[in-house]
């Protein structure tokens, strides 16, 4: 079909607008908001919206600036005729009118129906959901603003059937599939989906699921029955095993008991022998003891005799030696006395000599002290004198009033001030001199004689005689008063100070000040010189020497009280020689004293030794004699007990014999015992006891085991586990076979469904190749000869579009991966190709409208885009907004 013209009235911005369309391509241009897209909408709604529609979809068509209802008039060709359609949208009273030019007219519903028929679409939308359905009408042909880059699936899927039918026709009537094919495919597909999940797992709620679950269940029941039977058989086995074990026990027990009896009789015999052994051991012990006792006595007697002999041997020489020791002692004593006397005399003489020496030393000391004292005395007096004159000066200074230079300066300052004030005053004063006067001249109160003058500082009256009175005002004015005051102040101040200081004049002050200065200087000098001569040190040394001298003289005096010798040499030299002489002789005497002391010590030691030796020997002799007596006594005692020598020897031999006999008997008994292997008896006893105990334990265990199993085997005959298992096994085997059969069938249905789908896909691919080729044709205008389109159909519905560039190695770029601009262009190619195919069913032509479809495409592309678009001219009439 082809649109020839459209006229819109009162449609939003348009008052009245008519467009005539070129059969090939029409370009509608204009500025934004001039209503271009509105035109696209108007045509679309005229075709696909019922005239009697109400609601928002109609209201939005209404013009706000123009009155009147929106109206669209379209002239179009379809099915070999030309038609004029007029629709006026005014809600429920909307009007539709279709006129076949030169022929029939249809109104209202009939018009809508006829229109749909001509367009080859469903009847126009109206009522609820109209807006949504509207969009889907001619969605592949009307490229609304903003939908240019939408995925082709969004509008192509709905057209899949039409496309395929057309492609079939293009392919010479060969079918993708027949109706039977489709039905069988759907049937097997549903059979498959009933039984299998998407992942190919059997569904639980399906025949295969049921069969598998039945299989599992029967297998479980069979296993349970087997387990019950197993328990029964196990109990049977237990009874059998217990029987076998009990038989064995019954067989072996008597043998063990017999062995035990035999072992015990051996044990008894052993016990008897052991008793004998004990008795014999006692007997032997007694015999041995007796023999040993006598033997011991015998030995003791011999030993005692020996002892006596030894003592006597030592005693004799000792006694002989005693006398010599006594003599030695007496000699030693005499030596000691002599040495002591000598020592005493020498010691006395040494003492005297020392006393002399001390006296001489003390005298010398006293001499030295006096000399030192005398030397220091002169110095000391000098210091004393200086100190005295210094004191004198200081008292003079104190007598003077304290007037220092500072004060003098202050006084001078005041004096100066006074003088200045006086001078100033004087300057201000006037002097009056009487040069000649024949009358009395009185200045103030004072009469002034001729040739004298006076000064006046104030206003003064001058009278000359009685008849002349003059007034003189000295210059200065107030300053005069100030100066006078100043003078007065200074004068009084000065006088005050004088008074305070106790002077009359400034000169006096100066004099005093200079005197003071002088005195101070002399005092300072005096102090300095005392310091230089270390006056303090001298005084200290002097007083020390006084003390020392006094002490030394006192000591000397004391020593002299015990001196009764020659008078002392006064001369220090003589004194010195006396001292050294005394020292020498004292030394000599001391040396002698020492050697005599040594001699005394030696004599003492020798004496003491001799004394102790004697004592020792005496003691030793006494001891020996005592021992001898004791030993002799003991010997007598031993012989008394053990008998005289001959009978004793006889008895000893007899006892030895008895002991030997007892030993022999005991050994024999022990040998017998060893021969019976007593350890083994004990071991065997234990082993046999264990074995018998085990046997009995085993017996009772097995009896219990048997009883328990036997108890379990007792039954009431309600079920037969063998039969139950047989039936359960048969059912499980059946269920398994059934499951195999069902599964095989299910898988065969799946195989069928899968194969059907594969076949359909392969056939669809073959049939849609021309469609893909057509799209490629358009694409190659844009992208060159290496560009190809690939289309995908799933279940006979368009499912996707991809782009292949052979230079990229044939890998397919899905539509969604392209850039926005590329998508616009590829989508346009797809729409054009699709429209081309569908056009065959529509008088060989269809309109395609692009509203702002290449917003994202490069301007350079425009040329090639145009070429692409125009490629379809003839089969398509393009409307490009």
């Amino acid at each position: 079909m082809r649109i020839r013209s459209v006229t819109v009235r009162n449609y939003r911005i348009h008052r009245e607008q008519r467009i005539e369309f070129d059969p090939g391509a029409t370009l509608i241009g204009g500025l934004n908001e001039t209503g271009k897209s509105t035109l696209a909408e108007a045509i679309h709604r005229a075709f696909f919206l019922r005239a009697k529609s109400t609601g928002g979809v109609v209201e939005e068509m209404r013009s706000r600036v123009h009155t009147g209802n929106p109206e669209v008039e379209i002239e179009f060709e379809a099915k070999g005729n030309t038609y004029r359609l007029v629709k006026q949208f005014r809600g429920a009273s909307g009007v539709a009118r279709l006129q076949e030019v030169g022929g029939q007219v249809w109104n209202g519903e009939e018009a809508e129906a006829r229109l749909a028929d001509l367009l080859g679409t469903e009847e126009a939308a109206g009522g609820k959901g109209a807006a949504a359905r509207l969009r889907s009408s001619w969605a592949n042909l009307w490229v609304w603003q903003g939908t240019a880059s939408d995925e082709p699936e969004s509008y192509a899927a709905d057209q899949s059937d039409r496309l395929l039918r057309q492609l079939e026709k293009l392919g010479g009537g060969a079918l993708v599939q027949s109706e039977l094919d489709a039905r069988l495919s759907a049937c097997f597909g549903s059979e498959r989906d009933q039984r299998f999940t998407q992942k190919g797992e059997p569904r639980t709620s399906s025949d295969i699921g049921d069969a598998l679950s039945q299989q599992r269940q029967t297998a479980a029941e069979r296993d349970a029955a087997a387990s019950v039977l197993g328990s029964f058989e196990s109990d049977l086995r237990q009874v059998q095993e217990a029987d076998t074990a009990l038989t064995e026990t019954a067989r072996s027990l008597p043998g063990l008991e017999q062995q035990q009896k035999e072992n015990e009789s051996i044990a008894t015999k052993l016990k008897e022998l052991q008793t004998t052994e004990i008795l014999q051991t006692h007997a032997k012990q007694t015999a041995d003891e007796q023999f040993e006792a006598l033997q011991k006595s015998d030995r003791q007697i011999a030993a005692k005799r020996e002892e006596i002999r030894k003592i006597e041997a030592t005693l004799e020489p000792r006694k002989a030696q005693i006398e010599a020791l006594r003599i030695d002692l007496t000699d030693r004593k005499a030596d000691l006395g002599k040495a002591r006397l000598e020592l005493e005399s020498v010691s006395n003489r040494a003492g005297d000599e020392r006393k002399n020496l001390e006296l001489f030393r003390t005298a010398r000391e006293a001499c030295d002290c006096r000399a030192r004292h005398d030397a220091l005395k002169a110095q000391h007096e000098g210091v004393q004198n200086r100190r005295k004159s210094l004191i004198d000066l200081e008292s003079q200074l104190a007598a003077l009033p304290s007037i220092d230079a500072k004060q003098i300066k202050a006084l001078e300052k005041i004096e100066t001030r006074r003088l200045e004030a006086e001078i100033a005053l004087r300057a201000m004063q006037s002097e009056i001199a009487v040069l000649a006067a024949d009358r009395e001249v009185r200045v103030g109160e004072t009469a002034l004689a001729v040739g004298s003058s006076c000064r006046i500082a104030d206003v003064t009256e001058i009278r000359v005689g009685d008849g002349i009175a003059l007034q003189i005002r000295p210059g200065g004015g107030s300053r005069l008063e100030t100066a006078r005051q100043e003078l007065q102040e200074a004068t009084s101040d000065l006088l005050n100070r004088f008074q305070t200081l106790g002077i009359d004049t400034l000169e006096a002050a100066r004099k005093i000040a200079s005197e003071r200065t002088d005195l101070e200087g002399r005092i300072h000098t005096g102090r300095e010189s005392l310091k230089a001569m270390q006056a303090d040190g001298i005084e200290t040394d002097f007083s020390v020497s006084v003390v020392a001298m006094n002490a030394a003289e006192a000591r000397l005096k004391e020593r002299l009280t015990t001196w009764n010798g020659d008078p002392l040499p006064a001369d220090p030299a003589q004194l010195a020689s006396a001292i050294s002489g005394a020292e020498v002789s004292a030394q000599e005497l001391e040396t002698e004293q020492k050697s005599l002391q040594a001699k005394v010590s030696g004599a003492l030691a020798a004496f003491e030794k001799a004394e102790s030796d004697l004592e020792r020997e005496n003691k030793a002799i006494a001891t020996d004699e005592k021992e001898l007596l004791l030993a002799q006594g003991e010997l007598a005692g031993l012989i008394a007990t053990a008998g005289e020598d001959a009978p004793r020897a006889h008895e000893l031999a007899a006892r030895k014999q008895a002991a030997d006999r007892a030993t022999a008997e005991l050994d024999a008994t022990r040998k017998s015992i060893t021969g019976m292997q007593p350890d083994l008896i004990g071991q065997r006893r234990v082993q046999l006891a264990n074995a018998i105990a085990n046997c009995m334990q085993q017996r009772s265990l097995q009896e219990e085991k048997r009883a328990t199993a036997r108890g379990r085997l007792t039954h009431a005959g309600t079920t037969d586990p063998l039969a139950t298992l047989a039936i359960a096994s048969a059912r499980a085997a059946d269920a398994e076979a059934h499951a195999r059969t069902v599964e095989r069938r299910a898988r065969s249905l799946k195989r069928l469904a899968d194969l059907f789908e594969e076949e359909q896909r392969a056939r669809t691919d073959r049939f849609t190749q021309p469609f893909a080729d057509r799209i490629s044709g358009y694409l190659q205008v844009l992208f060159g000869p290496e560009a190809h389109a690939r289309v995908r159909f799933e279940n006979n519905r368009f499912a996707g579009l991809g782009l292949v560039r052979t230079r990229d190695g044939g890998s397919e770029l899905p539509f969604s991966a392209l850039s926005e601009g590329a998508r616009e262009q590829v989508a346009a190619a797809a729409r054009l190709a699709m429209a081309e195919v569908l056009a065959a069913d529509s008088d060989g032509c269809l309109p395609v409208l692009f509203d702002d479809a290449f917003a994202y495409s490069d301007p350079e592309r425009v040329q090639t885009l145009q070429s692409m678009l125009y490629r379809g001219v003839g089969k398509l009439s393009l409307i490009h907004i």
Partner: protein
Amino acid sequence: MTCSFIHTADWQIGKPFGTIPDPAKRALVQHKRIEVLKRIAQVARDHDAEFVLVAGDLFDSPRATKSDAAALCKEVGQMQVPVIVIPGNHDHGGPGSLWEESFFVEARTGLAANLRVALTPDLIELDSAVILPCPLVRRHESSDTTAWIRTLDLDAFGDKPRIVLAHGSVQGFGGEGGEDEESAGAPQINQIDLDRLPASGLDYVALGDWHGTKKVNIRTWYAGTPEPDRFPKGGDYQSGQVLAVRATRGELPAVEPVATGQLAWWSDAFVFSDDASLPLFDTRIRGRIGDHAQSDLALLEISGSLGIAAAERLRSILDQCEALMLRLKLRDTTSIAPTQDEIDALVGRTTDPVVAGVAARLIEESRGEGEPAEIARTALRELYATIQTA
């Protein structure tokens, strides 16, 4: 002295027949084994039997239920003459078995006073015979249960026929033919050494364990089971009988097999060479079933290959047969090989190109081996069937 008695064995009361899936049919087959006891009683009356000997395996399990015990005792009670039995390997004595449990003792005393269970190897002296029972007190007995007879002083019994009652396998027989799969592999179990028995002092050896009637030697017989309980293995296997015996002291016994069984256990085999052989199979099977529906148990071995449609028909035939029988045990190794027409019908569908494509692929896959090929064949069948009904 002569005595007349019935020798039977291997009643296997309580056998579960788990492989019969239908519970009603299973119960029927089980019940047949009780019913046969009535016929045994009739045979005993018909032959004036003085007593009945049952050589073991009265029950199928040592833990037979009290209801089975009661049913057995009731029927035994009806026999009225003494019924002397020993435990076999299935219903062996010993701990855990039913023979001494109170429920069995009550059933016996209440319903079958004539029933005598020899649980110990102690002779039973009757008026007209001496019975020497050799009971099994465990399932697998390694010693010879008849050994105690070897040292007996049989002369003490004078003129009375001496009859051994035992259960197990004998040398030269029973090792590989033993009923139990277990004893088949271990010939030392439950062995009876006939050669060591004092042949001159004995007049009849009544054996049980082998389910087919079998004469072992001049005086030794297996009675076989009175009601068949399995598919026959060999051609000369004869079961569903009891033996009516007349034994005389010092002479050979006279033994007459009497049929008592009702159910037919038969087997057959068929090979399908092509689709045309299917109707032949149908005729043959139906012929064998005949008009005695609900009383047959059959073992069918089928092999060969059929086309898809024929395979479906075979399935339906087998379903029908199974319904008519008590049990149909199938050993089915048939395979589906689509006929050329069938292939063309699928692959040559130009109007249904997808179907044709799918069918071609399936046919390719079905020529392979293993599970994927099986799945492909099943898929072909499903496809074919779905198209037929679409």
